[in-house]
């Protein structure tokens, strides 16, 4: 004993350690498990009912299970503010609401009739919610969306966050997080872009499945299917048409509600036949208000100048050159280099985009027969390059029209000019009656160079 006391005397730090142990060990030993105190929220939905907010939380319920299915539940809470509503949802749950695992925030288009920044301000600031939480909107109440999303995994083994993640990486290819929304909102132009997912009822499901299969047939037949607009444009511009394989609308049906069920004030009745439809659309937001919707083709129009957006497919028709006769060729963008430069010429701003595309021929047909050459080493003729260029330029122009109409700069024109020609750009803005409308007075030069991968 004396030895021990002497050891403590010689090393007072041991005493400190003992004191800390005495205070903290009982807390640690007798405190309940984290999952019994905290609810694991994977998605947050915000709705407004009159003057009150209704926050819905898609919550993971950790339960022993013999399958790989997760049990989820949608819990709601109401309050005068989003923070209060989340806190009230905690009351329903009987647990503390933990947002660290929330990867998705859903808002309804109805909420977006007014400035949504004030509605989701809390979500932008709360430290426990990751900055990269993806913000999406839906045509139905967010609560219904989360109820429908619940069934995704049960029916087709797809989690909502996986679907969103797929869209972010492969369809939007741009930052559509809560953080990115606020960056756009607080920027000079007040413009942001976020993802859009629809909900369809049972009837819509059937229709969508029909559309989907129809689209597939049309794609197989070399037509634009779900992209009839672009097909039409193609015809107008000399019979060309283009379609990206990823453009097709896919739907996820849900036959019944998941086992998790809802609690609190949420209800699943009437939602069992709703399903999430992913058509790769996005929504344009100006000063926090939704101003327009971009189709997948229009979104791809933006992504032409996005160096990260590769692996797209481009289909051109009526190709006749030294190798092919009246062929339909499908290329995949294997690599892309984008260089954006800004300058002023005689006081006119010029936004020049140089795009170098590395294309690989992946499919081709001459009339009704497949092409009988190895596509791996195929060259790109001037005819093909011209058609690809024309197709991409026309798609970019279409998107630009929408952006100009809505005065939404979501392609970073202002940022680029602010960095490179700040003084001249500000002078240019001052010279306009409506500086917000500057896109209409901006000259865009899109130079596309196509080369084999």
């Amino acid at each position: 004993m004396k030895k021990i006391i002497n050891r403590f005397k010689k090393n007072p730090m041991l005493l400190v350690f003992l004191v800390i142990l005495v205070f903290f060990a009982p807390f640690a030993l007798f405190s309940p498990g984290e999952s019994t105190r905290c609810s694991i929220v994977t998605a947050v939905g915000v709705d407004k009912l009159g003057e009150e907010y209704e926050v819905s939380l898609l919550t993971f319920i950790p339960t022993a299970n013999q399958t790989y299915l997760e049990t989820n539940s949608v819990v709601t809470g109401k309050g005068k503010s989003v923070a209060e509503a989340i806190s009230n949802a905690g009351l329903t749950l009987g647990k503390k609401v933990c947002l660290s695992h929330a990867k998705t925030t859903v808002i309804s288009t109805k909420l977006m009739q007014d400035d949504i920044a004030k509605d989701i301000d809390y979500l932008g600031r709360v430290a426990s919610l990751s900055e990269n939480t993806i913000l999406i909107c839906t045509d139905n109440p967010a609560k219904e969306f989360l109820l429908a999303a619940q069934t995704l995994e049960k029916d087709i083994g797809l989690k909502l966050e996986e679907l969103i993640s797929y869209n972010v990486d492969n369809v939007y290819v741009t930052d559509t997080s809560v953080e990115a929304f606020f960056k756009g909102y607080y920027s000079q132009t007040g413009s942001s872009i976020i993802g859009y997912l629809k909900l369809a009822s049972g009837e819509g499901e059937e229709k969508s499945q029909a559309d989907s299969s129809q689209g597939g047939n049309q794609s197989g037949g070399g037509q634009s299917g779900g992209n009839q607009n672009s097909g039409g444009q193609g015809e107008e511009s000399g019979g060309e048409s283009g379609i990206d394989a990823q453009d097709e609308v896919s739907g996820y049906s849900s036959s019944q509600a998941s086992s998790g069920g809802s609690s609190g004030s949420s209800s699943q009745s009437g939602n069992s036949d709703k399903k999430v439809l992913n058509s790769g659309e996005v929504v344009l937001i100006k000063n926090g208000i939704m101003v327009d919707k971009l189709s997948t083709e229009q979104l791809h129009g933006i992504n032409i100048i996005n160096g990260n957006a590769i692996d797209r497919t481009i289909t051109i028709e009526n190709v006749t050159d030294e190798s092919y006769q009246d062929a339909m060729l499908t290329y995949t963008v294997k690599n892309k280099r984008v260089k954006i430069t800004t300058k002023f010429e005689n006081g006119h701003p010029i936004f020049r985009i140089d795009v170098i595309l590395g294309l690989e021929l992946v499919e081709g047909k001459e009339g009704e027969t497949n092409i009988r050459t190895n596509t791996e080493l195929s060259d790109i003729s001037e005819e093909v390059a011209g058609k690809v260029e024309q197709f991409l330029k026309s798609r970019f122009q279409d998107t630009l029209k929408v952006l100009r109409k809505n005065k939404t700069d979501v392609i970073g024109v202002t940022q680029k000019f602010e960095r490179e020609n700040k003084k001249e750009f500000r002078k240019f803005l001052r010279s306009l009656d409506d500086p917000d409308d500057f896109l209409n007075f901006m000259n865009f030069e899109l130079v596309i160079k196509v080369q084999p991968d």
Partner: protein
Amino acid sequence: MKDTTISARQAGMICAVLVLANKIFLLPSLIYEGAKSDGFFVALMLFIVDLFVLTTFFMLKAKYPNNTLNYILEKHIGKFFSKLIYIVLMFFFLFKVLLTYSVVYAYLKGQVYQDEFALLALISVIPVVNHAVVTGLRSFSRTIELYFYAISAGVLICLAVALVNNQGMPYFFNTSVPEFFNSAFKHIFTFGDYIFLFLIIDKIKMEKKEGKQILKFAGIGIFFVLSIFFLFYSIYQITAFMHNNALTDILSASNQSNSVGRLDVIAMLTIMFLSYFQLSIFAFGFSEAFCNVFHKLNRAYSVAVFDVIFLIVYVILVGRYENMLLYTRSWLPYLALVTNYLIPLMIFFMALPKKKGVKYEKNY
């Protein structure tokens, strides 16, 4: 007699740890409110001024290689003013401890210990800090030396991940000159940490040109802080005001880094180690000043007094860390004006050679 001296290398590491104090969580966001992304230049400017203070330290050390600060001050301005300076420094270091503790507590409460309360957290801080002060500068300097590279690795990992998340250059040159200097003034209390070196001037063993070691590590600390500022402003750009924990936030700003689970644990561990050292250094600064005001009382007394004053001020005056931040930007800058600039300026004149033409051996 027990050796209480530390090497120039250890002093340099203390400098680096001090430079990181209170500047890598909330400060980039707070400065952004006033100076936008030019907050980077605010920090740069204040660091440059701090480097002049460090140069003054080298000059003083060259002139008085083995004397205590107390001796130097008494020699030039007499006992009364010397004590007055020490009292001012006591308050300075006390509020530095309060600020550091408040900010770190708020950070850890938000990130990890949501259910814990301040006094319980104090139980894990005060004994360690007390022990560090009582055992003396030499022992905790050696501990810092031991952990310094682990801390540096933590910061470097955060910076490397942030580089991946980087989204371009911050928007510079968007503030007016008054806004810029107003913002600089509001945050000077967070800077000016090199004054600590003056307190331990007699305890730093500096052979020929060994001052370079101090400069090197001070430079590393400044590089870390400025890199964090730069990356924070380049990642968050115009929403920097919405993010409170720069070191953690630069880590968790992208989908890629977030897919590696809770990567912010690296930032948390780094911050925890750093905070213990920073609190110990500031508490030692208080204790050193206290011992020079009350010559007859030894270090154990100073620690007891520190604990009592710290607890009283924390519970009554500070309470919430928001209050501490308010003080930091309202009246504490005036205290910092004295400690960061007036006292070093006065010491600069003391460090000048007595006669023209006399040159002391350059130590850096």
